[in-house]
C-alpha cells in the first residue's frame, strides 16, 4: 500500500513547462557557442600554471586574496530575508540539533577508518571537488603509531593519508598552508587514539590541491569533547558574502578573535557548539559537546593556528 503511494507520488512529479523551455533555450544557446579546438598544453606550461596557482594560494588564513569569509550575523530570519531579497541565492547556517553525538559514537565513526586502514571501503573522502573518484590504494604503513597509505584517483591524482594514535604525530606533514600546534591541547585534554587523520591531495603532476586534518579530544572525565578540523583547498575560492547566520536560531552567536588574530564565528545551541574561521581557501572548525563559551575561546587561543609558510 505504502509502496503504491510512494510510486504514485514520485510519478506525479513533472518538470514544469517553463523549466523545460529554459533548459531547451540554454541547450540551443550552448549548441551555438563555437567550440574551440582542443589543444594539448605543453606539460611545462601546466606545471608552471599550477605552481603559480599554488604560490598565489598561500598564505591562507589571512593574507592577500585570501580574506575572511565567515557568515554574517543577523538578528533573525526576517533580517536575513530583508538582506537577501535581491539575491538569487544565499546560505543560511542553522543548527541541526542541540544534542551532541556521544563521544562513543564520534570515536566509533572515526575509528572505522583506523581499524579498516587496509580496506578500500575506507579510502573515500575528499576536500577537492575535482578529485572524488578513488579507484585503488597502497598501504605504506599498516601498523605503529602512525599509519600511512596512498589512494589513487581516476584522473591521476594521489591522496596521501595518515592516521595517528596521537594527533601531535601528524604535525609536520602539512604543507604549511594551514597548521596548528596541538601541544597545549595534549597537555590539557585527552586525545582519542586512532581518531586523528591528515591527508593531502596532489594532482598527477604532484601539485598540492588540498589538505585536511582532524583530531578528536575529550575532557579527562569524558563529560565533554570536541573535534578539531582544518581544510585547505587551493582549487576553490570560497565567497561567503551571501552566507548568513540568524542569532535567533541559536542560544548564543558571536565572533571571537583569538590571540593570534583569527576571527571565529561561535555558535551555541543546546549542548552543541560550532566554531569556524573560514577564508577563501581554508576552513578551520571546532564541533563540540558540553563545552562552555570560555572553554571554547581558550581552546581556540591555544590552537596556535598559523597560515602561510
Amino acid at each position, binding site marked *: 500500500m*505504502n*509502496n503504491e*503511494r*510512494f*510510486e*504514485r*507520488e*514520485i*510519478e*506525479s*512529479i*513533472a*518538470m*514544469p513547462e517553463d*523549466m*523545460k523551455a*529554459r*533548459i*531547451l533555450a*540554454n*541547450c*540551443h544557446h*550552448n*549548441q551555438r557557442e563555437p567550440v574551440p579546438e582542443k589543444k594539448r598544453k605543453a606539460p611545462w606550461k601546466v606545471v608552471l600554471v599550477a605552481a603559480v596557482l599554488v604560490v598565489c594560494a598561500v598564505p591562507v588564513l589571512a593574507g592577500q586574496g585570501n580574506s575572511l569569509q565567515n557568515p554574517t550575523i543577523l538578528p533573525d530570519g526576517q533580517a536575513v*530575508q530583508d538582506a*537577501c531579497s535581491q*539575491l*538569487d*541565492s*544565499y*546560505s*543560511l*547556517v542553522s543548527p541541526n540539533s542541540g544534542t551532541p553525538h556521544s563521544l562513543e559514537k564520534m570515536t566509533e565513526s572515526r575509528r572505522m577508518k583506523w581499524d579498516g586502514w587496509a580496506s578500500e571501503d575506507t579510502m573515500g573522502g*575528499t*576536500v577537492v*571537488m575535482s578529485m*572524488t573518484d578513488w579507484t585503488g590504494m597502497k598501504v605504506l604503513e599498516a601498523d605503529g603509531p602512525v599509519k600511512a597509505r596512498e589512494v589513487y584517483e581516476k584522473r591521476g591524482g594521489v591522496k596521501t593519508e595518515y592516521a595517528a594514535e596521537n594527533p601531535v604525530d601528524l604535525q609536520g606533514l602539512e604543507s604549511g598552508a594551514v597548521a596548528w600546534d596541538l601541544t597545549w591541547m595534549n597537555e590539557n585534554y585527552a586525545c582519542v587514539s586512532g581518531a586523528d587523520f591528515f591527508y593531502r591531495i596532489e594532482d598527477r603532476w604532484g601539485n598540492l590541491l588540498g589538505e585536511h586534518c582532524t583530531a578528536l579530544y575529550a575532557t579527562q572525565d569524558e563529560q565533554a569533547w570536541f573535534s578539531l578540523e582544518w581544510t585547505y583547498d587551493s582549487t576553490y575560492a*570560497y565567497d561567503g558574502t551571501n552566507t548568513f547566520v540568524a542569532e535567533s536560531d541559536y542560544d548564543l552567536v558571536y565572533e571571537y578573535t583569538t590571540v593570534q588574530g583569527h576571527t571565529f564565528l561561535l555558535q551555541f545551541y543546546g549542548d552543541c557548539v560550532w566554531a569556524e574561521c573560514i577564508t577563501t581557501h581554508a*576552513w578551520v572548525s571546532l564541533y563540540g559537546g558540553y563545552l562552555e563559551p570560555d572553554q571554547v575561546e581558550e581552546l581556540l587561543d591555544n590552537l596556535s593556528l598559523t597560515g602561510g609558510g
Partner: protein
Amino acid sequence: MTHPPSQTIEEALERYGNVLYRLALVMLQRPMDAEDVVQETFIRYLAKLGTFREGEHEKAWLLTVCTNLCRDALRARHRYPQVGLEQVSEVGDVPQDRAVWAALMALPEKYREVLVLHAVEGYRTEEIAKIIGKTPAAVKMRLSRGRKQLEESLGKE
C-alpha cells in the same frame, strides 16, 4: 521493449525530462538545484546526441550523468550549503501526498536514489548498480533499508 534513440534535443527532453527531474529533485530536494543538474545533463548530452544505438542505452547514460552531477552538487552543498530563496517557505510545486514526500525526503540520499530508480523507473538491481556505480549487493541492501525506513515512517501516521 526497445525503442530507438532520440534524434533531437527536443525529443530527448520530452522523453527523459521528467525522469531526470524526478531523480534530481528527490536527490537534491530543491527545484532550482534540480533544474541546474538536469540542464547540465542535457548540455553534456548534446555532445553524445546521435551516438546511442538504442533508447535504453541513451536513458541509462542520462541517468548516470544526472546521478553523478547530483552527487557533485550534494558534495558542494555539504561544504558550502546554499539555500535557494524558494526554500525559505516550502519546496515549490511538488508534493501532493505530503506524508509520502516528507518520509522520502527524510531518508538518506543513497536510499532515495535507488528507490526512485527502482520503484518508479522500474530498473532492476543490476541495472541500478551500473547506473550508480555500486555493486548489486549494495543496491539490494539500500533498497531493502530504504523501503523499511519508508514503511516505518509512513506507519507512524
